[in-house]
């Protein structure tokens, strides 16, 4: 390189050096210490977060109590999963922009229709990162008349540990998550439902 090893500091000769450059002021040191303390807190924060493996442990929601699922539906009413205590519920996370969601939707419609007469299962959908108008168009086109929670649903998805859509969870009448599905089929839902009813001994007539 062209520069001499000890190039002098560039000080513009015209610049009036009206402040002692060395000593006296410790601005930089004080700022550095402040920034350092802030970063120490930040590092502490990062280091104490549960690691990925622990997190996936805690994300295993199957077998635990269902987190709170409530919000505003497409029709503008408030809905909460508590309303459906005593019924089996299927909580379905979906988005109108997600192709596999579209593929599974007819199955969900079929499943809901098959159980409509008996009234033993309630489907609740949670729109994930989606626009209400797009969701409405999706349901108009694809069918399905269950409540759809729209708007800021990020917290619900995080509580369930949803990693992508579609994901569905089967919740027992007493509020326990008994199964998780990544994409559902009516037959699979029914067989898991039948098995779960047998295991928990909870069955609705």
């Amino acid at each position, binding site marked *: 390189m062209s520069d001499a090893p000890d190039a*002098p500091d560039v000080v513009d000769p015209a610049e009036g050096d009206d402040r002692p450059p060395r000593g006296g002021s410790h601005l930089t040191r004080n700022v550095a*210490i402040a920034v350092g303390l802030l970063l120490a807190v930040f*590092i502490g*924060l990062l280091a104490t*977060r549960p*690691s990925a493996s622990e*997190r996936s442990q805690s994300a295993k929601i199957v077998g635990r109590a269902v987190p709170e699922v409530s919000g505003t539906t497409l029709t503008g009413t408030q809905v909460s999963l508590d309303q459906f205590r005593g019924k089996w519920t299927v909580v379905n996370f979906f988005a109108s922009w997600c*192709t596999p969601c579209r593929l599974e939707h007819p199955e969900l419609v079929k499943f809901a229709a098959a159980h409509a007469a008996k009234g033993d299962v309630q489907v609740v959908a949670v729109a994930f990162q989606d626009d209400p108008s797009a969701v409405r168009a999706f349901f108009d086109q694809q069918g399905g008349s269950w409540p759809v929670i729209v708007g800021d649903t990020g917290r619900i998805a*995080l509580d369930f540990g949803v990693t992508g859509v579609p994901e569905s969870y089967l919740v027992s009448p007493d509020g326990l998550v008994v199964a998780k599905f990544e994409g559902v089929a009516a037959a699979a839902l029914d067989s898991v439902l039948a098995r779960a009813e047998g295991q928990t001994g909870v069955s609705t007539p």
Partner: protein
Amino acid sequence: MNLALGKAGVALGLAAALFGALTLAYGLVRKRPNLLRLATAYSVLVLLGGMIMFVAMERALITRDFTVQYVADNGSSRTPALYNFATLWGALEGSIILWAVILGGYILAVTVKFRRRLADPLVGWALLTMFVVALFFFGLLIGPANPFKSFSPPVGFDGPGPNPLLQNHPLMAFHPPMLYLGYVGFTVPFAFAIAALVTGRVGEGWLVATRRWTLIAWGFLTVGIVLGSWWSYEVLGWGGYWAWDPVENASFLPWLTGTAYLHSVMVQERRGMLRVWNLSLLCATFALTILGTFITRSGVLQSVHAFTASGIGPAIIGFFSLIVVVTIGLIAWRGDRLRAPGRIDSPMSREGAFLANNVLFAGFAFIVLLGTVFPLIVEAANGNRVSVGVPYFNRMTMPIGMVLLFLMAVAPVLPWRKASGELLRHRLLVPAWIGTGTVVLAVILGARGVMALIAFGLAGFAGGSAMRQLYLAGRRQGWRGFIGRANGGMVVHLGVVVIALAFAASQSYVRQAEFTLQEGQTATYAGHTLTYVGHEVKLDANKTVTRALVEIDGTGPWTPGLQRFANGNQVIGVPSVRTTPTNDVSLTLLALPEGDGAPATIRVTIQPLIMWLWIGGAIMAVGTLLAAFPGRRRNPIDPVSAPIPGAPDRRKTPVAVG
């Protein structure tokens, strides 16, 4: 065989980095120049170790050697050759191999470039820093991210292959290496910053020595980011190219601080000011690349394309702490001695504009960092899990982007020290007209919306300013008017302007609709006709592809499809995009036709000017190359502009620097 070779490579790299660091440290402390000169040999060995493990892993992947755990986890006999090659950086352990081998390359390049100055303590400390960084990455490869674990495959075993999303677009082979060349490249200026702090050599020498390295790393990072968003646009099929995902932000953060540095370094070279700030920016840029590595690989943040869970997090956070402690400690110790006596005379000057630029870029980076880690802060504070959405980032960053565009127009014509209003009016007249013309043209073409029109106007203004500078430089210096830092910088600015235009247009005028069409049926949308011709099913070795054949305005057929990979039930959409200079028509197949003659549901997304995002990225890359090319050499302590003989002392436009 591959296992043994790979392990040998890791061991060689690790040992070379360790002994290199120890030798240099001893040589520096005991002042033994001949020990410092050994750096070349050690750097050759580090790179050799890296190459050996790289080749071993590629060989294992290509020969489908499932006795290597990494290949058993990520390879498969059905993966096509290109994606098979790219599988090396498709998962965590392999990506660290790529990182280490690139770092080895950079270290060797530094020892070659500075071969005559190896005995200089400044260079010695810089190389010592780089060996320590290499030691860390090779250490990861024997510890938490060991890619060469053995596996005994059962008879007839075949791996699952890479994630399906990583094997349906060739850009996947280029985006990660470019990104890593950028990330790792920032190690060089960081190492010199540390060396400058340790030796207390506050002269501009180290800056001049590393400016071009920073520029090259920055250029690679830019290309990597643009390729990444191109990949997501082509592959993910939601019509978008940037989602403020934590992993995207992780690559964007060092880009922001790196950009700030490339501007503020000029103030230091010219006026000797902002020394501590520049050192801090370089350290921050490197620290952010490591923080980005932590975010993408530790699993603390939920993200669509983070690597799978691994135990690598604590090691990276430990290294990050080391960097923070060392740099903050050094700056606290040396900082007050480095502070320059200079002071900015007038906000209406080049240095004033650079300072404003830096404040904005730093603010930009802070907003992005805050949005990225905010969920962690809230979770730590009260246990709630929150997500920070795209609206936050858009609302917070758009105003900064607008002001930056304005600065991009004004700053290049500002002289150093102080500008007069009259001078500014004279120089900005043409750019202002170009900006106004852009708005008028946009309105004539049907553009509406205040924010978009402001963005167009500011982009035109900034573009006009950059073109004015290039025109003047070209007239004065001929073809040399396009090379060198200032002129290449103006080319980069033009690229940014093109991206800003395309970004504003595509975000503001996106149209999206869905159609369910019978075979032979035609739909009309936003001036385009879509005809569903039929569908086809193709069986490949590793996947089944169902495609709809759709004609757009009588061209095509375009083939949006759905892929089902042999292993795993994941269904992946393959969008089909008709790209023209004016707009992109992107088709996504939403529902499979159930049989012959059945209807298909297709989503169409129409966005204007998308192609110009990628063209803008290419212009930025070319501009970076031009800027890295040595322009007119000028000693940094030369007067800014010589008085013209025989003329009154009137300053020329300071255009060509560097």
